[in-house]
């Protein structure tokens, strides 16, 4: 594309205490290009990003920016030069409002600020990110969810109008639709001749968005500015980890017939975020809990685990009613819980790694002493099983470990107790690919020994690869319970859509149903099943018996003929005496969004199909 690089870093070295984080790292960036910076955890991506953005100084090396040497000794100097960074660990001031946080860097500049202008600009940025109605400018940053904090962090960088923006794992806590919005924003920045650095563990995203890739390993640059189109995923993984990796997700075990559920949840309520959640999980099963960030997934499992007060509903553990008021009660009953935010909810930095591993034991332990001794053997086994070096247990600070190692220690904390139900909230967040694969393998093993596992993940690919069944939550309500064998990412994305758009869609279906005195539904069809996303009926006699969140085979419905035919006209089903019309719907961008079906009794005259199709397509677009 262009000639002179906008930014060039050569031979950057940096050591922290005894650790050499960077050993001659290079990075070259061009304006108007998105550059992916990749590497396993601990490869030095974050350190390099922080050197560039002035958060840490470098020991040696040269940085040239816009043709002149740059020596930013503080984030302030880097910002003034037009270099901004979206931090991985969010750096928001928890007591300030969203608005104040977005303009925090400006508060450090002399001169007056116009609050009204700031509000206007912040609102524009948030609506670019698709958060116009969802994120209040006056909310306190400390009250926000992880995804919202990340979005504010991104908004903060966008407000700076920088020429070089580093996104350090910006998508780790975002839902797919938010990721799509972010990619739109990045594309716009790119066309405005910004240079973008995109750090991510998600390779699909890297391929979707980047123009060039730089790969780091052990503090060095091992591949610099390779065109993304010239690499495939396998080559990239090999560059990152320095060895071949088997398939990350092993072959999924077929959904076996399970007996009685270990854990059974009915109508769980914990306002404001958990409204009505029901699901079962069985021995030996890995259950996925999907949905957008903010759908109440973390809150649901925290309520089950006794971390949040429960307002209603029933929880049964092995058939007996069970209502823990504290985590200690849940743990003693056989629960384990790997929380979402390792730094905040799991790691105790002043205890040794070993005591961190034993912390769950300490919580479950009754008695005055420690009872560590009786766990020795099991710890040794676990360390071997998790491929962790046993000598590192003696180390003083778990925070010095890589993200993947930290997560393994936290998982080991719970495996030590041999839980009946192990709940993991985003277990692979900030974990490199190599460790991910081994975490998946461990979870599968643990399930095979008879534990029930519940995994929350924002990565639909992970849910589909790991779980046998997925529960989809939307606005605090469980809306679907489907085996993963019948699901794909597209169906999950549509199922997880937020309530507000679902509500509008339901109104449309309701209107269609009463117009023709029948029923209407929104569904995705594949070869043999119909995934019902939404449904409404005005005439009970014309109800095709499609429940939202289910995926019956065609022959299990009363409109099988119509579903199979996929005709542009009404098709009658002789068995049930119903006739149905299917209309494919698309988004503005031409994205396929399944079909709307209209069902009426066969003895009624069918309305003209062509006109019907026209109105449905038009009005559906308006509901999105």
């Amino acid at each position, binding site marked *: 594309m262009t000639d002179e690089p906008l930014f060039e870093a050569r031979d950057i070295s940096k050591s922290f*205490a*005894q*650790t*050499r984080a960077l050993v001659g790292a*290079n990075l*070259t960036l061009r304006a108007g290009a998105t550059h992916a910076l990749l590497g*396993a955890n*601990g*490869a030095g991506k974050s350190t390099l990003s922080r050197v560039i953005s002035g958060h840490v100084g470098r020991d040696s090396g040269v940085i040239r920016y816009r043709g002149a040497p740059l020596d930013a000794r503080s984030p302030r100097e880097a910002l003034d030069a037009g270099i901004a960074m979206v931090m991985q660990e969010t750096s928001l001031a928890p007591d300030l409002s969203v608005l104040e946080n977005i303009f925090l860097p400006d508060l450090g500049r002399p001169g007056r600020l116009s609050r009204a202008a700031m509000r206007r600009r912040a609102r524009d940025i948030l609506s670019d990110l698709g958060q116009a109605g969802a994120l209040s400018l006056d909310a306190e940053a400390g009250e926000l969810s992880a995804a919202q904090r990340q979005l504010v962090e991104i908004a903060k960088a966008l407000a700076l109008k920088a020429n070089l923006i580093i996104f350090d794992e910006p998508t780790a806590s975002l839902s797919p639709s938010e990721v799509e919005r972010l990619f739109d924003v990045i594309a716009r920045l790119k066309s405005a001749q910004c240079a973008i650095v995109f750090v991510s563990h998600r390779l699909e995203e890297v391929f979707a968005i980047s123009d060039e890739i730089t790969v780091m*390993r*052990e*503090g060095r*640059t*091992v*591949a*610099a*500015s*390779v065109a993304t189109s010239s690499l495939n995923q396998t080559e990239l993984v*090999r*560059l990152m980890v*320095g*060895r071949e990796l088997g398939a990350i997700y092993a072959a999924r075990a077929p959904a076996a017939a399970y007996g009685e559920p270990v854990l059974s949840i009915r109508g769980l309520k914990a306002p404001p975020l958990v409204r009505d959640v029901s699901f079962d999980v069985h021995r030996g099963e890995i259950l996925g809990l999907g949905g957008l960030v903010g759908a109440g997934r973390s809150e649901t499992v925290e309520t089950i685990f006794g*971390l949040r007060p429960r307002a209603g509903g029933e929880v049964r553990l092995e058939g007996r009613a069970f209502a823990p008021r*504290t*985590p*200690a009660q*849940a*743990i*003693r009953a056989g629960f384990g*819980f790997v*929380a979402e935010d390792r730094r*905040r*909810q*799991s*790691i*105790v*930095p*002043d*205890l040794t790694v070993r*005591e961190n591993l034993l*912390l*769950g034991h*300490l*919580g*479950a*332990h009754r*008695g*005055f*002493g*420690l*009872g560590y001794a009786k766990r020795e053997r099991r710890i040794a086994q676990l360390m071997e099983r998790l491929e962790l*070096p046993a000598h*590192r247990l003696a180390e*003083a*600070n778990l925070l*010095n*470990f*890589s993200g993947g*190692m930290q997560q393994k220690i936290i998982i080991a*904390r719970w495996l030590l107790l041999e839980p009946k139900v192990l709940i993991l909230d985003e277990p692979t967040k900030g974990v490199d690919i190599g460790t991910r694969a081994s975490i998946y393998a461990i979870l599968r093993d643990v399930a095979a020994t008879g534990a029930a596992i519940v995994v929350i993940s924002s990565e639909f690919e992970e849910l589909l690869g790991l779980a046998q069944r997925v529960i989809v939550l939307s606005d605090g309500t469980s809306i679907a319970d489907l085996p993963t064998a019948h699901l794909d990412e597209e169906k999950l994305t549509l199922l997880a859509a937020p309530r507000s758009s679902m509500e509008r869609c339901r109104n449309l279906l309701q209107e269609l149903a009463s117009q023709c005195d029948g029923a209407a539904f929104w569904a995705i069809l594949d070869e043999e099943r119909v995934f019902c996303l939404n449904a409404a009926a005005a005439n009970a006699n014309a109800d095709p018996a499609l429940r939202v969140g289910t995926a019956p085979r065609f022959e299990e419905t009363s409109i099988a003929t119509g579903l199979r035919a996929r005709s542009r006209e009404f098709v009658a089903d002789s068995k049930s005496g119903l006739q149905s019309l299917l209309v494919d719907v698309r988004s503005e961008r031409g994205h396929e969004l399944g079909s709307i079906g209209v069902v009426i009794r066969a003895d009624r005259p069918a309305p003209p199909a062509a006109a019907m199709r026209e109105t449905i397509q038009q009005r559906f677009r308006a509901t999105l």
Partner: protein
Amino acid sequence: MKPDFPGTMKASNRAPDGERRARAPFSVRSAPLELRMLALALVIAITLSLMSPYFLKPANLLNLLDQSVVTGIVSIGMTFVILTGGIDLSVGSLVGLTGVILGLSLHHFPIPVAIALAVLSGAGIGLFSGFIIAYFDLAAFVITLGVMAIGRSLAYIFSGQTSISDIPASLNDLVYTTVFGVQTNVLTLLVLYALAWGYLTFTKGGRTIYAIGSNREAARTAGLSVLFYSVVPYVVAGALSAIAATLMSSQILSIDPLAGTGLELDAIAAVVIGGASLYGGRGTIIGTLIGVFIMVMIRNGLNLLGVSPFWQGSAIGAIIIAAVLAERLLSPRTRR
């Protein structure tokens, strides 16, 4: 630049962190905190012994231990509280109040009952502050500041604004009986430190106190009893204030409602000099003992050298600042 493909690189399946870490030679930085503080204490001791011929005399050394008792005992409770990330400003005034309670009880009850009453009231007041702080999640500084004012005021009211001196002389035995040549008050100090060390190191409660101070949320998620063990340290601090008050009154056979004024600051200073973090989670009971010795040695040394008592505050203050500063500059860990 051309991409560097794996074929051209050295095979590497080394652990990224472990191997890149250079072996550090033994240095001041890598030594445990207690050792560094002990070294500091020795340096002070040697300096003082060079400056004053009396410093190393056995009589003076025993005197040093004797002077460490009250501050030392109160500092144990302060260590517990500071480890959870709290602070207890009320311990000094509780020494005054529980002393007065002891004195009044001695008018009506035998000695053991009177002591038990004093210790129970100290523990009870600790329970009160601890519960309010932990249950309502309030700032320990503010609540204990309030309790400090109330405690001192009650001490004046109960005592009728004068010192109580009509107490049994046999109380003296609590201090001056010797076991294996060691005075009982010093013995009490050492036994209490041993117990506290054992508790903090080898019990569920002790480790929970560290975990709470280091990361309260993680402690809760791991099923530890965060509320209970957030209150325990204040109860311990209150009870130990009463024990300190008992030993103090037994030694001088007189109880002053003013007793223990400013003691909380000495205790906080000892804990901080001993290497504890006021953010919680970091610090040891041995460190605190060394901190107490450092404080007492400096006081004692300055007395021996004939330095005006008015200058002693400046000296102690300078030592606190220097100790904390040195700790920050030497610490291999960066601040969280």
